[in-house]
């Protein structure tokens, strides 16, 4: 990682047990997303969903660098962030189904899964809206002298809206304890990001940090360990008062933008090429090569996670609908 002053540093590598738990989490996210699609087709999910299969490495790697005290602001494509922070699977599925046993009482749905007790501050559907929010949370921590950061996750599509530039400017100006993670999944809705984002030839979104004198990094979002390292260093920088970092994690969503989008705009072969660099495959291969995991252990992991996901979805579906009285109680605080 290269800081604004051209400095290069490295983070403490996570041990094998931690990496095995990351792998299991990524498998949980993958199977949970597949399950969301399955229950959607069964008519159990109102509205639409924005799935993240293929992007598990960014959230697991980034959240792996955080402590429970750190804060996270994500987006409507936020299932992987929620599960990476540890949202309970039953509360997760119930929320997506709009049931009262959902983690947000059924008020949020697929787009807005947050658990305050896990440091999740919000998950807006409006593009770019969370970037200033993460900045404000990071300032709050700084003003109180707290050793915690806020991480703002957003997509490549958010890098062209005003809040991106406004928030980066103020975050750097005031040295907010914030880390920005752009999950560049190559498409803003149906449009390739290079068709909507002015960059130098061969340049990256992360280059935009330079306009604000901010540190930046481009990382392989399919490699959870690389994301972890970049976020760890950015977190340390923020806590040292050296300011925020804009991290571009290059990744890919295997599904379309939302449930109804088959992703037909993608060139032939592109999806298959990315699947060759699957984040679960990359970390699994690494752990097997290192001798930290046996192939049979990996298989067992998939099996038991599938059982947990299926059971959680079944329990979630037994939840009742939220009442109007419950909804009324959620508008205003006491």
């Amino acid at each position, binding site marked *: 990682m290269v800081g604004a002053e051209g400095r290069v540093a490295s983070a403490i590598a996570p041990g094998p047990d931690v990496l095995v738990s990351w792998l299991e989490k990524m498998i949980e996210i993958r199977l949970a997303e597949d399950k969301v699609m399955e229950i959607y087709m069964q008519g159990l999910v109102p509205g639409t969903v924005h799935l993240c299969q293929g992007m598990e490495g960014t959230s697991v790697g980034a959240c792996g660098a955080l402590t429970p005290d750190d804060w996270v602001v994500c987006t409507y494509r936020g299932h992987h962030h929620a599960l990476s922070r540890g949202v309970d699977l039953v509360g997760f599925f119930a929320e997506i189904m709009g049931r009262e046993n959902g983690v947000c009482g059924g008020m949020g749905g697929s787009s807005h899964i947050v658990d305050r007790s896990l440091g999740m501050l919000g998950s807006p559907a*409006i593009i770019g809206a969370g970037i200033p929010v993460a900045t404000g949370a990071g300032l*709050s921590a700084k*003003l109180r002298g707290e050793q915690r950061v806020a991480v703002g996750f957003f997509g490549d599509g958010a890098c062209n809206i005003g809040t991106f530039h406004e928030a980066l400017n103020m975050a750097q100006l005031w040295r907010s304890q914030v880390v920005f993670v752009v999950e560049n999944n190559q498409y803003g809705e149906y449009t390739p990001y290079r068709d909507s984002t002015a960059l130098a030839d061969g340049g990256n979104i992360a280059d935009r940090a330079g306009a604000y004198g901010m540190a930046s990094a481009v990382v392989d979002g399919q490699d959870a360990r690389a994301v972890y390292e970049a976020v760890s260093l950015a977190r340390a920088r923020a806590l040292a008062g050296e300011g925020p970092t804009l991290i571009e994690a290059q990744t890919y969503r295997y599904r379309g933008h939302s449930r109804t989008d088959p992703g037909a705009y993608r060139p032939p072969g592109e999806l298959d090429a990315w699947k060759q660099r699957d984040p679960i495959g990359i970390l699994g291969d690494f752990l097997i090569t290192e001798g930290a995991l046996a192939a049979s252990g990996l298989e067992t992991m998939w099996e038991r996670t599938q059982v947990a996901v299926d059971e959680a979805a079944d329990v979630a579906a037994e939840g009742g609908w939220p009442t109007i009285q419950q909804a009324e109680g959620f508008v205003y605080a006491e």
Partner: protein
Amino acid sequence: MPSEAAVVTYREAIRLALDDAMAADGSVVLLGEDIAKAGGPFKTTAGLYEKYGAGRVFDTPIAENGFCGIALGMALTGLRPVVEIMFSDFLPTAFDAIAMEIPRWRFMSGGQLSAPVTVRASGGAGGRFGAQTSSTAESWFLQFVGLQVAVAGSPQGAYDLLSVAIASNNPTVVFDHKALHNTKGELLRRGVESMSPPGKAAVVRSGGDVTVVASLQMLRRALEAASALEDSEGISAEVIDIRWLRPLDFETVSKSVAKTGRLVVVEEQYHDGGWGASLISRLTTEGFAWGSPPIAVSMPELLISHSPPLEDFMIPSVERITSAVRAAAG
């Protein structure tokens, strides 16, 4: 804090509300354009940067949507930010943060999150500032459930409403009026526990013939009209300072109209889609038997110009209010 009332300007009442809130609660922070070292474009924050420091008073860049979103992030994590929007007309640049984010995060999270953000905005005509810096903007946010909206018509109102808004666990937009900044009135500085909660209007003049409901600068003009009518024609108008547009104090207005049977709403805004229309609609749909049809004194559907005769034509004058009250009484 002094225990006796003093005569202060409306501008000073705003400044004192901020000062007292910051002294009482270390989590109150201020953000806005030119509010720190320069003391604010309208001097409503004069001396606060010197008193509380750079960690509590932030000079922001000109980026309203961004710093309102930052205020949301601060509010979600234990601070009570007060944001100043220099002119109410700049509120649309921050519409996403103020209308779509701040009032909805609590609901979407199933009550897990709270966003105690106060947004202050100075608006209104009279300064010959033209079409983009003269709106009161007071009703623009009425479709955004989850957001409280207050309008200050006097120094005491400005102090109380801002104090209550800052102490509230819910987000609030508090409007003040530029033409009132130099006006004076009695102010008693006091703790929020002795103030009315959000949603309470104030009967500022008692009367039996016609109920007049007004906001901001129109409150002074309505009082002037009421006084003149009482003296010259013996018409007794009850004047209500509406103070809160959400929650709207239907009860206080309803009680007054039950007595007078007649209503005039006076607003420095277009009537359609505004709080005056809401009041008339609610009273009517609830079957209120009008003694005479309610009257709205509001702005014609034209835009505000900096040219003095044209601006004056737009804003309800004491004469227009007087005629309306006379017509309602007759």
